[in-house]
């Protein structure tokens, strides 16, 4: 590679705009140079050009300075003269001159070899953005993303569960034993509140990391822009700009950045509409709930059931978009779309890692604050005995304060098939963050915890088992990679023997639905998909769109979630599924 001179030319850079424009520029420049307040702020020639371009911000600034009004008057005379002479706005003339100057320069410095030959990028685009193939290819890409998140992360998920439920709980109890607290409420708080809560979050870090990895690969390779382009026609049907697809895709990772990503849209109408629809995109935190329920109720078709949730979220967003387009957002049309398709590039490890790490860090930050707090609050609610039975931190959960609070809302969910205080309780804490739905279920169904018989092990044995099981998880993950591309839709996805939690959920849902557990489980998954994703999204919506739209979103989503889950459960009953 050759570098150029490493110093600056001392003569200022000037483009020749032609005699008429140059005359106007130099006259204005002279006036500007006689006004020190202006030269302190702007280079004189630059300002002259901006005034002729009728740049409204710069003109407003100049108007506010003494002597500025006079200069603006002179500028407008030149603008009027030039416009009548050329029949075009002066900013267009200036832009034309700039482009032709650049064009001239580029001709001088570039020698193009294989000029009009389509690039590899163009060739890929002919297929990927093809009218008929574009959408199927996009769906395939999305399918690969979900296989990656469900299958590849699974071995690590098991590993984290085992480590937290085994050695870490053991160590915590052993440390508490040193201060003779191993049988007190403190031990209960640590193991059932803190470790169950945060541990239940950490368990899903592998899932989210692989999802963020997939999103980073899509973004860094340049495919994400194609996805937006391909989806443009579909997006327009729901009254959105093709660019709105990007926040919506980001929403599959996490709805919170999706809300912030609406900032890339030009007008407020598009931003708000996208911000109302983004929460229907099923985020990574909802995935664990689907995975758990799909494994409990649809073990043979769990991938399909999970995938169906994602599709349902999109479908609901489309329908709501159509409704809003013709009602609340009827007035203005979306602006035309200008979208750049950057050439395809091999994703770099650095960019992919940085993106994946920042997002995962954001999730962990949320986990550490909101979720830990929720887990402790829920634990405390469960620790407080109601009606004189039991003592603090030593009461049956069904006679705890939590069960009474949850019981209050239970009737709302009766027609949906999951009118039990356990399910209502999980949905209450799920309003704060979806990550805690599973851990709350773990707590309300009273599985795991210190009552579980743990085999006595030495510290060294623990460490060895942590390391060897991690290695085994890594091996299992690599073994699963070839299966991502396998078209194994209805294949054997039999899970391990159901865990205690799974058995408890099945029993609970069968009881609350009159023996239609699978239907109630499906309705529950649908409800989790459609109601408010988490407190952080609510906060983001308030910040971006104001309290009015925030409440519209919260109430609207609850109503929609209830109606769709109602339709699923009652419809299923009628059809006799």
């Amino acid at each position, binding site marked *: *590679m*050759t*570098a*150029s*001179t*490493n*110093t*600056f*030319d*001392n*003569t*200022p*850079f*000037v*483009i020749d705009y032609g005699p008429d424009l140059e005359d106007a520029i130099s006259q204005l420049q002279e006036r500007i140079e006689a006004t020190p307040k202006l*030269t*302190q*702020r*702007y*280079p004189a*020639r*630059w300002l002259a*050009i901006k005034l002729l*371009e009728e*740049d*409204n*911000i*710069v003109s407003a600034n100049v108007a506010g300075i003494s002597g500025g009004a006079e200069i603006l008057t002179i500028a407008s005379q030149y603008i009027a003269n030039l416009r009548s002479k050329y029949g075009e706005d002066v*900013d267009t003339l200036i832009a034309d001159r*700039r*482009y032709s*100057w*650049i*064009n001239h*320069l*580029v001709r*001088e*410095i*570039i*020698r*193009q*070899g*294989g*000029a009009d*030959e389509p*690039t590899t990028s163009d060739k890929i685009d002919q297929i990927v953005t093809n009218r008929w193939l574009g959408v199927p290819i996009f769906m395939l890409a999305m399918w690969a993303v979900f296989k990656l998140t469900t299958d590849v992360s699974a071995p690590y998920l098991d590993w984290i569960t085992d480590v937290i439920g085994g050695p870490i709980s053991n160590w915590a109890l052993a440390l508490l034993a040193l201060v003779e607290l191993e049988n007190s409420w403190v031990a209960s708080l640590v193991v059932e509140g803190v470790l169950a809560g945060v541990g239940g979050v950490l368990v899903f870090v592998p899932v989210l990391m692989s999802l963020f990895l997939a999103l980073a690969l899509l973004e860094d390779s*340049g495919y994400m822009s194609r996805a937006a382009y391909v989806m443009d026609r579909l997006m327009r049907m729901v009254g959105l700009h093709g660019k709105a697809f990007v926040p919506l895709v980001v929403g599959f990772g996490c709805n919170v950045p999706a809300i912030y990503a609406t*900032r890339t849209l*030009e007008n407020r109408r598009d931003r708000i509409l996208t911000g109302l629809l983004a929460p229907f995109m099923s985020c990574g935190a909802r995935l664990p709930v689907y995975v758990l329920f799909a494994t409990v109720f649809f073990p043979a078709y769990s991938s399909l059931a999970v995938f169906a949730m994602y599709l349902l979220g999109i479908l609901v967003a489309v329908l709501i978009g159509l409704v809003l387009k013709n009602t609340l957002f009827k007035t203005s049309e979306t602006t035309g779309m200008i979208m*750049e398709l*950057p*050439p395809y*590039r*091999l994703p*770099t490890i*650095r*960019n992919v890692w*940085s993106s994946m790490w*920042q997002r995962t860090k954001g999730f962990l930050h949320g986990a550490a604050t909101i979720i830990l707090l929720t887990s402790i609050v829920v634990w405390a609610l469960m620790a407080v005995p109601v009606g004189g039975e039991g003592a603090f931190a030593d009461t049956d959960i069904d006679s705890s304060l939590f069960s009474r609070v949850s019981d209050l809302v239970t009737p709302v969910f009766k027609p949906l098939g999951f009118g039990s205080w356990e399910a209502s309780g999980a949905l209450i804490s799920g309003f704060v963050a979806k990550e805690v739905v599973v851990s709350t279920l773990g707590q309300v169904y009273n599985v795991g915890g210190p009552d579980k018989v743990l085999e006595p092990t030495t510290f060294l044995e623990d460490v060895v088992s942590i390391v060897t099981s991690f290695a085994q998880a890594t091996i299992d993950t690599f073994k699963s990679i070839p299966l991502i591309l396998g078209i194994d839709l209805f294949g054997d996805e039999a899970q391990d023997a159901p865990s205690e939690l799974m058995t408890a959920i099945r029993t609970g849902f069968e009881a609350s639905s009159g023996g239609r557990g699978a239907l109630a489980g499906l309705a529950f998954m649908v409800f989790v998909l459609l109601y408010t994703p988490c407190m952080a999204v609510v906060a983001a919506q308030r910040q*971006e769109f104001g309290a009015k739209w925030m409440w519209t979103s919260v109430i609207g989503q609850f109503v929609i979630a209830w109606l769709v889950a109602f339709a699923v459960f009652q419809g299923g009953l009628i059809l006799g599924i």
Partner: protein
Amino acid sequence: MINTTHTIALAGNPNTGKSTVFNALTGLDQHVGNWPGKTVEKKEGRWKYNGSEYRIIDLPGAYSLSSFSMEEIITRDFILEEKPDLVVVVVDAANLERNLYLAVQILEAEVNVILALNMSDIAAARGIDIDVSHLSEVLGVPVTPMAARKGQGLDDLKQVIADALNSTKNGGSHHQ
């Protein structure tokens, strides 16, 4: 030369690899926030080189310096009001003509500019042969070819930045 904090702004169209250059210079020493009162992301970082420390601002991707979008206004205001010591304009060598539209306008704002000719590898693969020294001569600024994603030309860029800042320190700068 210790503790001289120069401010370097990175400007360029979207998708020119500006972020890659920013990451390469600052490593993990970054701070991501928002521009005051604006809903556009502001990335700032520190870069240490040969005992000097530099403040690096990653300006939002923009196509022009007009006032049509928030990104353009932020870029323009930063260049004119904060008067960075140096603006590194990252351009896509494979789409030079379109990218120069912003570069030329930044040059017109009479600031010290270095043109980072990124994605030179892609341009070369497409048979686009750029006369770098002639480009540098016409624009009156240093031009460095690079392929940031492959890590090529980054050392050159760092050296050119350091040299340029030294020369403005000794020679005349555009500041009043």
